[in-house]
């Protein structure tokens, strides 16, 4: 299916969605302006409730915007929902395949739903079953499949009509690390092979970081940043140097000395530890250590961490994305230490 000739795959202006519950109106998405070019792989990143899924549901015609406009694949979501639906694939948070159906049956009827002939829906289903490693389970009842298998079936359903634009809403939530990696590989391969435009939402920092070329950070329904992961980190968060000292007083003196020496650095000091946030921290650290040594304040240990997208989010919003996170994502997972010495 070819999209109507268009410069942008997605173009929104002032896209807003307000929900009214018990006479209180809550704006889930507030005036979102977003453009996505054909072939891009974009991650919408934000905490739960930031408005990512609501945005996706408007772009996929599942809910109508309260105000603002959105064109998807060249068509207006409000006035041409039918055309939008033909052009896009959508993999929601739940399971697309009915639990009392068989996987292959669902793929075929999903293909028919997009106007494919029975023969082409069948051969396309076979192809997807093959490429998503579902051969063993495609003719079993969906309810008997494992979570990872069901998720791969969802992906196959989203791809049945070879959409030019694919939306994935929290694709890896509930998957174990191995299945998450597997799913990410499929998304990358899909894009390399077919040039599909991919828009996904996630609250997994590492997923946005490793998968997407472009990260759109959303908080409280607003776009707060939009760039490559590398540029976001360079612009919005410095490296983090953590210095430990033998005495509290040494740490205090060292903090004061660093503040004098590096006006652009953010310095925090607690107990025997000093945390310095500064651009190019990895390059500055050796000289900083020598300087402190000369001043009679030798550090006992030092750790330099590259910024993560969480640091970016923290800087942009004053809150951590990891707050309220469950134990399956220990904080250390997201640190990326590049140098630890004693």
């Amino acid at each position, binding site marked *: *299916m070819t999209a109507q000739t268009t410069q942008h795959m997605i173009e929104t202006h002032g896209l807003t969605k307000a929900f009214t519950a018990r006479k209180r109106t809550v704006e889930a998405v507030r005036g979102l302006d977003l453009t996505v070019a054909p072939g891009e792989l974009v991650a919408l990143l934000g905490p739960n409730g930031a408005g990512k899924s609501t945005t996706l549901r408007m772009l996929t015609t599942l809910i109508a915007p309260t105000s603002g406009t959105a064109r998807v694949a060249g068509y207006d979501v409000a006035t041409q929902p*039918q055309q939008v*639906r033909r052009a896009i694939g959508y993999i929601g948070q739940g399971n697309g395949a009915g639990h009392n159906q068989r996987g292959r049956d669902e793929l075929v*009827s999903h293909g028919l739903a997009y*106007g494919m002939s029975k023969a082409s829906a069948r051969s396309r289903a076979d192809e997807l079953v093959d490429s998503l490693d579902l051969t063993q389970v495609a003719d079993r009842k969906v309810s008997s499949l494992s979570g990872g298998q069901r998720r791969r079936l969802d992906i196959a359903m989203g791809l*049945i009509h070879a959409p030019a634009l694919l939306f994935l809403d929290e694709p890896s939530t509930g998957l174990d690390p191995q299945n998450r990696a597997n799913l990410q590989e499929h998304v990358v391969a899909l894009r390399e092979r077919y040039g599909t435009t991919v828009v996904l939402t996630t609250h997994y920092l590492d997923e946005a970081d490793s998968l997407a070329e472009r990260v759109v950070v959303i908080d409280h329904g607003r776009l707060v940043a939009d760039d490559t992961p590398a540029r976001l980190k360079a612009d919005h968060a410095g490296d983090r140097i953590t210095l430990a000292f033998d005495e509290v007083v040494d740490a205090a003196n060292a903090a004061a000395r660093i503040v004098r020496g590096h006006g652009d650095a953010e310095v925090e000091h607690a107990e025997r530890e000093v945390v310095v946030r500064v651009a190019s921290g990895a390059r500055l650290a050796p000289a900083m250590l020598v300087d402190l040594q000369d001043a009679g304040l030798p550090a006992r240990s030092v750790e330099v961490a590259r910024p993560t997208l969480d640091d970016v989010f923290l800087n942009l919003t004053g809150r951590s994305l990891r707050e309220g996170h469950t134990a399956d994502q220990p904080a250390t997972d997201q640190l990326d230490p590049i140098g630890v010495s004693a």
Partner: protein
Amino acid sequence: MSTATLTPTLTAPSNLARDTAIVFGRELRPVLRDPFSVVFSMIQPLVFLGLFAPLLGNVPGLSGGALQWFVPGIVVMSCLFGASMTGSNLLFEMQTGSHERTLVTPMRRSALLMGRALKEIVPVLVQAVIVIAVVVPFSFELHVAGTVVGLLMLSVFCVGLGSLSYALALAAKGADWIFWTVQQTFLFPILLLAGMLLPVDSAPGWLQTASRLNPLTYVVDAERALFAGSFDGSTVAAGFVAAAFVCALGLLVGGRAMRAAD
């Protein structure tokens, strides 16, 4: 591989009949794959047939004998049970996410409802055949022409009832307890007031009035006439009017609920 080679052949433009057929086929497939599920949903009607019908032996006012009077009622009952519960399938698919997936396809919203509702006819007909097969050896007198017309009427009724059940599932927004509370609250009064289990002829006046306001009463009366081979004009006509009314109401309410899901 280039994008072009991937483009699948799209043969048909979206149209209501094709979309309805796709939904119908999808809904029917689990039944065909597992035909026993139809029999399973019949356990209750069969229990009534086996354990309740014998109690009717000495009840006065049952035209043509207890079995002849009771069987049409039990056929309507299996339709009533099956079609009123069918919304739970949609409810489950709303919870798992597969209903949402059908909403992002270009299929017509009304087809999503009609395909599902039309599928209700299949188990109703299969169940009617099973009930009749069970009772014929017990000297049940089968009138083929009347029975065929009766099942046609019942099909119209159950499309409407199935649609109402789907509308209820959509209105419940995936909440099981709302669906089952409302379904159970309506099911038994409608069943009892229709004179399905016992005749309402000797009931108090207020109950007879309530019975006359119940569309199902007219369907049950007409089924009894037709199963007995009588094509009594006004009774059969009233049954068809009532079935058509429920069908139109169901498609209207259900179609509206499905479109509101946008």
